[in-house]
């Protein structure tokens, strides 16, 4: 198939494209908290936490091929680690992030050992059990001294009436967040400033999760993961330690998934299985759906899937009112007395799986190459990248790189 333009990987044009894309993303990340209202910022926070969880899941499912429908439990570990450490022990929310990562990592590694003996649907069932049992564990009466039971945290025994930053108007409460004397957010009691504060926490977490995923995927471990996903036997023959690799990736994925849980606990100021849907199995299924729709096994897939999911559900939130449904499709949804966002996303999922099983990123890769094709570096090439060559394409189908 012909492309309009072909450029060399690592060339000037390739770098210009990369920098342009990076500038767009960075510009968007900065535009939201500086120009949007608190409502849109809050929506962006939802998207950021969802994409962090989906990226973490992508590591184990998209790249390693290990099905997990229980990642909501790891997010819950993050939320409850923050909740317990802040409201029960009065610790700073900041130190709960590494603590949550370590705890979830350990739990993830433990779960991975039995999981390493099984695969496919059986592994899915094991992780599903984890996702189902975790909320029950939180409400278990014998653990209520720690988790607050069904009522969650904070409760009457709590030192602080919040699981997040103690922002408030009274003396002794946090009103500003200063970095070496610099107050980037202003009065945190204002909804837009507070939302911007949470936004940057969520954004930094998302960036960290992305960078860790990227670092792992591009490393030797990442190649081992892909080898396991594609053919376990062949990977083992090639010297990949299956048990160790799976355990480490499962632990890392679990640890990363705990971080957005910390963000949620900080943001809403309380934790309970009823109050945070993401820590129930519904959350795990949502992570799975957004990852698959965006594109499993691609770094940007979960990012795009999560943004799209939040956007669609947000935009259709008012459709319980028939008049709010655009006239063109009102007959399709007027019968539903509830906002049909999840239903629309389910239809999108079915349609995309039909035409694009690799998700939106897969579609993008397929069709963008008809316009601009990035020619890979010649095998064995070393040294600085060759000068960019932008030529009108004469590339034929036979030269098309394998997908």
């Amino acid at each position, binding site marked *: 198939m012909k492309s309009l333009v072909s450029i060399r990987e690592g060339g000037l044009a390739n770098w210009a494209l990369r920098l342009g894309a990076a500038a767009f993303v960075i510009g968007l990340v900065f535009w939201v908290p500086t120009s949007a209202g*608190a409502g849109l910022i*809050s929506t962006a926070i939802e998207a950021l936490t969802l994409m962090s969880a989906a990226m973490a899941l992508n590591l184990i499912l998209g790249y390693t091929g290990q099905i997990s429908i229980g990642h909501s439990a790891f997010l819950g570990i993050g939320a409850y680690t923050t909740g317990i450490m802040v409201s029960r022990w009065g610790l700073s929310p900041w130190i709960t992030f590494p603590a949550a990562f370590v705890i979830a990592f350990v739990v993830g590694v433990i779960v991975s050992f039995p999981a390493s003996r099984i695969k496919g649907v059986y592994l899915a069932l094991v992780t599903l059990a984890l996702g189902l049992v975790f909320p029950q564990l939180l409400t278990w009466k014998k653990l209520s001294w720690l988790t607050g039971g069904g009522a969650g945290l904070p409760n009457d025994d709590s030192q602080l009436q919040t699981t997040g930053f103690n922002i408030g*108007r009274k003396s002794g409460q946090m009103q500003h967040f200063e970095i070496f004397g610099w107050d980037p957010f202003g009065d945190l009691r204002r909804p837009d400033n507070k939302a911007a504060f949470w936004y940057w926490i969520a954004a930094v977490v998302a960036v960290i999760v992305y960078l860790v995923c990227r670092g792992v995927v591009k490393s030797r471990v990442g190649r081992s993961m892909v080898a396991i996903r594609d053919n376990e036997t062949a990977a083992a023959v090639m010297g990949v330690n299956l048990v160790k690799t799976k355990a480490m990736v499962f632990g890392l994925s679990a640890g990363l998934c705990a971080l957005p849980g910390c963000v949620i606990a900080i943001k809403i100021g309380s934790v309970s299985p*009823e109050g945070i849907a993401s820590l129930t199995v519904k959350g795990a299924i949502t992570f799975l759906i957004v990852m698959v729709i965006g594109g499993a096994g691609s770094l940007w897939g979960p990012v795009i899937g999560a943004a799209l999911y939040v956007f669609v559900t947000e935009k259709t*939130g008012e459709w319980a009112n028939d008049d709010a449904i*655009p006239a063109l499709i009102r007959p399709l949804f007027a019968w539903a007395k509830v*906002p049909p966002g999840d239903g629309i996303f389910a239809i999108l999922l079915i349609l995309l799986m039909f035409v694009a099983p690799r998700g939106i990123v897969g579609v993008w890769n397929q069709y963008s190459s008809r316009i601009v094709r990035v020619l890979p570096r010649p095998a064995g090439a070393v040294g600085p990248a060759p000068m960019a060559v932008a030529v009108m394409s004469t590339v034929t189908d036979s030269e098309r790189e394998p997908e």
Partner: protein
Amino acid sequence: MKRTRGLAAVIAAGALLVAACSDDKTTDSTTAPSTADTAVETTVATGETTVETVADTTPVTEPVAAGWVVDTDICVDADAANAPIEGTVKIGSVMPLSGGAAAAAFAPVKDGYEAYIKYANDQGLLGDVKLEVTIEDDQYNAELTPGAVAKQIDAGVNIFSGIIGSPNNLAVRDTLNDNCIPQLAALTGSPAWGDVADYPWTTGQLVPYSVESAVYAAQIAELYPDGAKVALFHVNNEFGQYYVDSFKDLADEYGIEIVGEETVEATDSNPPTAQITNIAALKPDVIMAVPLGAQCISFLNEVANAKAANPDWTPATFLTNTCASSLILGASGQAANGLYTSSNLIDVVDPANAALPSVAEYLAYMDSVGKASVAATATAGWTTAEITVAVLIQAQASPEGLTRASIINAARNFTFTPSLGLPGVEFKMNGEDDPFLAESLVVRQYAVAADGSGTFTDIGKLITDFES
């Protein structure tokens, strides 16, 4: 063929996406009729009288001398809190409108709420001031509540009212109090809404769980003067836990022995067969039950099965008033016969109440707005909106006029007889001395006739002992 099929699928997906992204937002707003001024004067002027019977159905707001006054000096923007609200009062709320069983249970609350706001506009209850309500969906998920509230604040909402769910209200309480935005009539019975000192801008509407459980404990003591063995059955969440903790605290005082406790998860839709079997084995005199939504029905059916299997066991069943709707009890059939519960509102579907002017007017209005099918369960939303409007009327009549500060001052110095309240029910708050709006209840027993129709019978008088 494959290409065509794929193209069609892409077009369909694209159409859905475009439709989802198109902006066609509407809010419920109607213009007040020209008779508005008269209506306001009439309503405010009736403040001196107290309604003694439900036959006289005009909702009554009694202006209370402003004792408690909110401190706006610590507001983020004190000027905004004291700025006059002119033209339109924008009311925001967040309710579960999608997301499963919760949506089905709470959707009628939205209908009732919007219907009363329309009614208030039609009647011109606030004169030239128009009411506009926007209700966002949070799927009963507290993660989504702050975003929904922030969006409404961006849109210039003046007050919030009727937000459903304890975690959901807690998730926005700090923001609304810091910014001095009234958070009226939180639709939960959590004791947290009584913290006037720390959260003056947040008020609750429902009878506190502690009060309701105390009412049942007192009734059990009356039924079993020599002491009663009670088994607890409750949903394992914040609602159930607060409830049974309150009940346990009162047990010794009322000579109650707790012989067993069984729980059901909030998301569990299976019949609680094992739990009720365990309770039946203990043969308690009373089952005190705190289920949630559809669990009320399955609980009653399982108790009926257990009774049938143990003919010598005839426990009294006490059920929280969240289950006491004709919708739920009607669906339970004979299994609901004889249970005890409580209420402070009129049962609008009881034929015996059909002739009451307030009920007739309510049903007629709901019918006129096409919501007759949910009228039985929409009373909660109707009453919440009615309380909110009554607070606004009182604030409007204050020397400051309508401001956010005057609204919360009115809410905290408030006495009101709701149109659908039982005779003698008064909703009142008085600063820190009385932080809870509703603390009166009447215990009722539900009887199911042979044809399956059910009626409530009041057991004793309205209990007002818990009023501050």
